[in-house]
C-alpha cells in the first residue's frame, strides 16, 4: 500500500486530501440510507461522519443490507 492509500472493503483505494467518512460514503454509495461504516474495527456513528477524518493506512468497512435469512 502506498502512503496515500487506505483499504475500503478489502481493496486498496486512494485517499483524497481532506477525506472524511462522509465523503467516502458519498463516493461509495448511491445513498447514505441504510449504510454503516467501521474504521479500523470500530463503528463510526452516523452523526460523526462529517467530522471523522480518514487517515492513510485506515481499514474501512462500508456495509448495507443484503438479502439474507
Amino acid at each position, binding site marked *: 500500500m502506498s502512503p496515500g492509500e487506505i483499504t475500503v472493503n478489502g481493496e486498496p483505494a486512494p485517499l483524497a486530501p481532506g477525506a472524511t467518512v462522509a465523503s467516502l460514503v458519498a463516493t461509495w454509495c*448511491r*445513498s447514505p*440510507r*441504510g449504510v*454503516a461504516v467501521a474504521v479500523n474495527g470500530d463503528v463510526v*456513528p452516523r452523526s460523526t461522519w462529517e467530522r471523522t477524518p480518514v487517515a492513510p493506512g485506515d481499514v474501512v468497512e462500508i*456495509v448495507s*443490507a443484503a438479502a439474507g435469512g
Partner: protein
Amino acid sequence: MASVDPTDQFTIAGADVGSRLILGTGGMTSPESLASALRASGTSLATVAVRRVDPATRHSLVDLLDGLGIRILPNTAGCFTAADAVLTAKLAREAFATDWVKLEVIGDDRTLLPDPIELVAAAEQLVDDGFVVLPYCGDDPVVATRLEQIGCAAVMPLGAPIGSGLGIRNPHNIELIVEQAGIPVILDAGIGTASDACLAMELGCSGVLVASAVTRAQDPALMARAMCDAVAAGRAARRAGRITRRFVAEASSSFEGMVAPGGTGGE
C-alpha cells in the same frame, strides 16, 4: 391484515410485532419476486444480512422493505466468532436504526449449526450494550434457558439445519423449550413446507421464521401465502387445545337410541 388476530398479540421486548410469520429475504431471484412473496406472506418483520456495499447494486433492500411497511430484523449471518457477530450487530444498529438483532454465530460451515459457546458470549455482550437479542440456537433446552437468563428477548431454536427443508427433527425438544421459556420461542431454520410451520405453532412456538422454504419454492408468493395460513392455523389449534392421543377409538356418536332391526330396540 388477515394473518393477525387482534386478540392474540405477538410481542417481543414489549413491542407488538404483528404477524407471527417472520420472513427471511435470502435466496430470491429478483427484487420483484421478493416483494410479491413478502406481500403474500402478510409478514411485519423480515431479516436482512449485513454485507459490504456493492456500488453496482441498483436496488435498495431497505427501500423495498420500507415501501412495504415491513420492519427490518438484521442478522449476523456468516459470523463464526462472538467478536465478528458483535461488530456486525453494531454496524446493523447504525445502518438500520434498530437495536434488534437476530444473532447468528455459526460453528461449522457444512451444517451451519450454531456454536453455543460463541453464541452465549456474543449474546451477553449485546444484551449489556442494550440490544434486543434474538439468538438463533440449537434445539437444546439448556442452551435456550441460558440465553433467556442472560436477557435475550426471544430464542430462535432450529427445526433442522438452515436451508435443509427437513422440518422439525426433534419436536419434543421444541416442546421442552416452549414449556420452560418465559420469552417467545420462534422456530427458525429447517422449515420445508407449510405443515412444518403449522407444527411449530401447534408445539407452542410464538412465531416462525421462514426463508428458503419460501424464496426457493417454485412459486414463492403462493408458498408465502401457504405459510401465512399454516402459522395462523397452527396458532389457533394450539390455543384451542388439541385432544389427547388415545391408543384405541372413542366413538363420537352416542350409542344411545340406536335402532335394532328385528329386535326389541335395546334392553
